[in-house]
């Protein structure tokens, strides 16, 4: 939660998270550059720049794949949620790995000529009308721009400045970046490869991202019936103590209905921080707690406890014939609504 901005709000979870990430990246690069060459069947080894391009380029692609898999994996199995917690650091590290790949290519292929290196980069290959030989560099540049943009705006300052919906829309650009990276590899390294292994691994990665998203996308429940404009949310006993259900609202974001101390409260399903799914959170210390970053809100009015200032939209609830009904008209953020006591 935020009352002021820090470069990084370190805690033990983030330190462990970043330590594991760095260890994975370091082992990948070390094995690729210093162990694997002993098993190559080549006349002479690759030059240092080309080897670095391969190591950091493939590593960035796999990291990006992992980032895109974490979200749906956490939706399908809550035990993956801790991997989602510090995903922004994951993204920044991926950006740094991708920049190292790009820097090696830029220095090796486009420097040392009479042309400005950026001019050489953009004019070196202009065969846009053919597939074989297509300037795959443009997809790499686009992917890199996306990664840098997302890394640069990953801090909470930008989240607040841009507002969560805009920030989240911007960061959905990662999918476009991933597509560009896939095309970059497919039209570049894969065309030059004499061994199909990279193509096989890459195809598996893309399939994994697609299948996980499809599987996670099938989970939302169907919209309920309505009675006099109120949405039937279900029976109160269908909500576990300290937990919530997400109630679909036609044409709007779902609403999270929490049960705590035998009372029900309804707030928007979108966390005010990064629009995380609050219905997948829990009540801790009497507060709704977001599963993504632990942002907390009071049940009755949707306000973060002082000194924090975030507020959620709240909703009215009522009982009819043992069923919980939800008024889909949202109250202004922070509006107090008396929790509905379960009979």
């Amino acid at each position, binding site marked *: 939660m935020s009352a002021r901005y820090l470069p990084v709000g370190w805690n033990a979870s983030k330190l462990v998270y970043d330590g594991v990430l760095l260890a*994975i990246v370091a082992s990948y690069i070390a094995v690729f550059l210093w162990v694997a060459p002993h098993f190559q069947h080549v006349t002479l080894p690759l030059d240092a720049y080309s080897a670095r391009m391969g190591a950091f380029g493939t590593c960035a692609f796999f990291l990006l794949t992992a980032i895109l898999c974490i979200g749906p994996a956490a939706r399908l199995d809550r035990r993956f949620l801790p991997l989602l917690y510090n995903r922004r650091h994951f993204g920044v590290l991926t950006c740094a790995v991708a920049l190292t790949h790009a820097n090696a290519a830029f220095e090796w292929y486009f420097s040392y000529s009479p042309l400005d290196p950026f001019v050489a980069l953009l004019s070196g*290959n202009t065969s846009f009308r053919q597939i074989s030989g297509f300037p795959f560099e443009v997809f790499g540049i686009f992917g890199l721009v996306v990664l840098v943009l997302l890394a640069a705006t990953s801090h909470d300052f930008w989240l607040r400045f841009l507002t969560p919906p805009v920030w989240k829309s911007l960061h959905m650009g990662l999918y476009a970046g991933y597509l560009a990276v896939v095309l970059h590899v497919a039209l570049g390294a894969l065309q030059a490869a004499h061994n199909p292994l990279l193509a096989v691994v890459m195809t598996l990665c893309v399939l994994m991202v697609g299948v996980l998203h499809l599987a996670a996308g099938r989970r939302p429940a169907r919209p309920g019936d309505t009675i006099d404009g109120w949405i039937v949310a279900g029976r109160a006993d269908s909500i576990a103590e*300290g937990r919530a259900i997400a109630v679909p609202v036609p044409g709007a974001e779902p609403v999270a209905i929490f049960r705590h101390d035998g009372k029900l409260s309804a707030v928007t399903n979108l966390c005010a921080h990064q629009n995380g799914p609050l219905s997948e959170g829990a009540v801790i210390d009497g507060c709704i707690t977001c599963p993504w970053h632990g942002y907390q809100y009071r049940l009755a009015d949707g306000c973060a406890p002082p000194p924090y200032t975030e507020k959620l939209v709240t909703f009215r609830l009522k009982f009819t014939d043992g069923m919980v009904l939800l008024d889909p008209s949202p109250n202004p953020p922070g509006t107090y609504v008396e929790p509905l006591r379960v009979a």
Partner: protein
Amino acid sequence: MSAFFVGWHLASIRPWAGFLGMVCGCAMVLFAAVALALGSVASDPGGGDFSGEKDLTGVVVAAPYPLLVLAPDAEHPTGHAVLLSGGGKVGIQVQADALNGKRVRATGVGFKRGTIDMMVGVQLQPAEGPSPEPTVIPLGVWRLTGEICDGKCESGIMRPGNGLSHKACANVCISGGVPPVFVTTAPVEGASFLLMGDAQGRALPDAFGDHTGMLQRMDGSVVRIADVAIFRTDVTAAVTP
């Protein structure tokens, strides 16, 4: 209440610690295994390599790209030709044009791959002595399949110095005046690396860029100067086989 992770509360991770430890361990092993697999199946970049500092004397041939033709010796009974290039991705066409047909002393750094002998970072100085005009031997008309590369990277400055990944670099090099070579899929009169020129024996036209870095089939005549084969072709008529 079942387990619920809160990032800022490390103790909340305990119920899932075993699962997460297994995931992290598997990820580390998987990443290392993939790195080992991908890193060990690198395509063979060939045997081009540094061949030492060079200080040679011979006759300059400026077209289609700068060559230094050395006098015959026991190893090269028809003479030996060395491709010349500047430092970085630039040629030495201006220097070579000024000294075309003359005897020079050339200093630079050597790279060699197969029949390509390349000097880079070349400085030419006029030298005393005979400057016989190199003999051009026609080897007939050929239809060849191969890849247009820049002679500098292909000869071992870069490994690999060919293929589509290297296409833009090859274009930048050749545009800068580095001699292009045609690497054939089958030898032509014993040569798999042929210096390239246009059909009239001049430098390639600007339109070569669509044809570099990938297999191309093209028709043209082959001539030999000393021990270097030169493929004279209309590169714009090249087709993908």
